């Protein structure tokens, strides 16, 4: 059942990505103010959304783990956080490319990108913490707590950086035309989110499988030591 879902998702994602890429590159006109580079928005923005959804899912899974002590929730939380980090990194990268082309600088302290950077550091800490704890139950418990703290901080980070940047105005990467896009652009933004989510799902599956295997290995090792 799971393998079937993975297979279907892979094909669907590949098709949609290929199709959308064709549309984006060939059919969509160059944007008036920003030129051809504006097309990057169709990846840059949905990746941010995906990262946010992933971190939120990690929060829910962490809470569910603490409530039920079922390690499957922990595996999910770990995997989905890493997926979030992957898409967050991609978001940062595309943002930096965009900034370089438009403003000539890789990093301009744009509020959204800066918030994503801080969030990325938060969750990178989560991953590092997991690496530092060997025993699976303790690892699950501690990382669940960190995940809760991290997500509680996310809105505060976003707000504080937003407020900080309104007082030190800097070029905002897609702010000027972002609010005034034509409907086709909005449609493609959401439509391209679908294959990106599917890729996220595939990465999630991969990572969860890994996590399950490592737990089985750990249990076998403990069993062997007890003999």
């Amino acid at each position, binding site marked *: 059942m799971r393998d079937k879902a993975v297979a279907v998702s892979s094909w669907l994602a590949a098709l949609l990505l290929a199709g959308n890429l064709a549309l984006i590159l060939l059919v969509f006109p160059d944007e008036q103010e920003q030129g051809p580079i504006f097309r990057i928005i169709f990846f840059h923005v949905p990746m941010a959304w995906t990262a946010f959804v992933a971190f939120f899912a990690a929060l829910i899974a962490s809470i569910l783990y*603490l409530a039920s002590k079922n390690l499957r929730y922990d595996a999910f939380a770990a995997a989905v956080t890493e997926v979030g980090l992957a898409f967050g990194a991609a978001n940062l990268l595309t943002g930096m490319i965009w900034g370089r082309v438009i403003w000539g600088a890789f990093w301009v302290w744009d509020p959204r990108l800066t918030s994503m950077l*801080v969030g990325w*550091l*938060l969750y990178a*800490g989560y991953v*590092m*913490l997991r690496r*530092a*704890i060997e025993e699976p*139950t*303790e690892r699950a*418990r*501690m990382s*669940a*707590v*960190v995940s*809760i*703290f*991290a997500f*509680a*901080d996310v809105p*505060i*980070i976003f*707000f*504080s*950086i937003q*407020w*900080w940047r309104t*007082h030190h105005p800097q070029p905002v990467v897609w702010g000027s035309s972002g609010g005034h896009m034509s409907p086709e652009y909005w449609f493609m933004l959401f439509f391209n989110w679908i294959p990106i989510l599917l890729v996220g799902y595939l990465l999630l599956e991969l990572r969860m499988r890994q996590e399950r295997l490592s737990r089985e290995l750990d249990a076998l090792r403990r069993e062997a030591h007890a003999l």
Partner: protein
Amino acid sequence: MAVPALRGAPVRTPARRPRLSFVRQVLTVASKDLRSELRTKEALNSSLAFALVILLLFSFAFEPTEAQTREISGGLLWLVFAFAGALILNRSFARELANDCLDALIAAPMSGAALFLGKALANFALLLAVELVCLPVFGVFYNVHWTGRLPSLLVVIVLGTWGVTVVGTIFSALTVNLRLRELMLPMLVYPILIPCLLAAVQLTSPLVMGQPLTPELMIWLRLLVVFDVIFTALAVALVETVMVR
């Protein structure tokens, strides 16, 4: 060796024991931590030394004018406070590891919240002490008059320090058993503290420059309060989860 008999009273049933109130529990833990620390002064000395060294290093590295210094005073001071704080916070739960004292505290009839708040209070007092020493040193070595708006400045320092302390203490509990504790604690805590430190910095610089708190700046103050409230509540709620295996 002759052993005098244990008090011959019949074994008491559980219900009849006197209890230590929550506030007393908090104060007992806080005073224990402070007494321990003041006797060894390990964390205090290293934290203070580190803070002063960084303060002086900045001066050598950037040679700011007096005006420049006042503009960046917030950033400078809070960086120093954050780094110095890490040394104190690290010690907080680590001091319980020797001889397995932490187990005795967890097994004792004391709520996790009381243990946590007691330690947070002690850390707060220690960090505040370090900061209050750093301020006049800063004033002297950078030749800056910083007492223009002293009451407001102290409020900001108290709120910011509590934010750093509360997050640092709960993560001190979380990382206490890790091999790489000294590395993991700052790595986890600093990103979380960014909003708190940002707000503190934005408030401190104008106050050091002698300016009043405008309505715009008051938003930062509110942010600081919100941060402190949310993370204190979260820490108190999750402390038992962190401490009981």
